[in-house]
């Protein structure tokens, strides 16, 4: 007899384990970019993709040296 899978509740940002928060951020950005491709409005699609690309650059440290210094953990 097939077991019905229980509804899982997605963790909130404050409950995300620290060791995987980077992976979750990158995965969420990929999900946003994938969903943007399905947006009916082309301009909105472009804006979303530009925003996602910029956020990914910031998350990956592709920023100015000064900003990178601020973002780096002490």
């Amino acid at each position: 007899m097939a077991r019905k899978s229980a509804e899982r509740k997605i963790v909130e940002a404050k409950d995300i384990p620290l060791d995987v928060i980077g992976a979750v951020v990158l995965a969420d950005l990929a999900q946003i970019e994938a969903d943007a491709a399905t947006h009916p409005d082309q301009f909105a699609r472009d804006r979303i993709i530009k925003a996602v690309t910029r956020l990914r650059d910031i998350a990956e440290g592709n920023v100015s040296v000064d900003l990178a210094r601020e973002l780096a953990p002490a």
Partner: protein
Amino acid sequence: MTAAPVAQIQAQELEPTPGAEVLMTGTDGARVLPFRALENTRSESAFSPASESAFTGSFTPAVKSGGKGFLGISDSRVWKPKLYSRNPDFPQVSTPGCFFVQHSGGFQLIHRATLKYLGHYTKSSIALLEEKYGKKKRRAKNR
């Protein structure tokens, strides 16, 4: 009105003066407040290396900082290609400490240590992750 000699003023500056005695008018006979070297100034100093760029107005072009980026994301260990995969339908990328579970046409990302449900990702988003962080496809050499 004669201006006090510079040497005299400097000698006066060296003497410690209580603030109540100092005249702020700056007129003839007034004492000049001594400037003391500020110690341990960080946010107040206009000449700290961190704030220099704000004053120079120079633009530093974006470069790969070589650091960890935000939350250590630029560290290449976050998402990496899977070396061995038993099931080709499963994502070909992985991240340390997590695993995927197939669910509702996509995949759930689960934290291995706490079994927390981190998120659901469609196949298209997984494809993007594979494109960015997966194994680079080798181009066939023309012989």
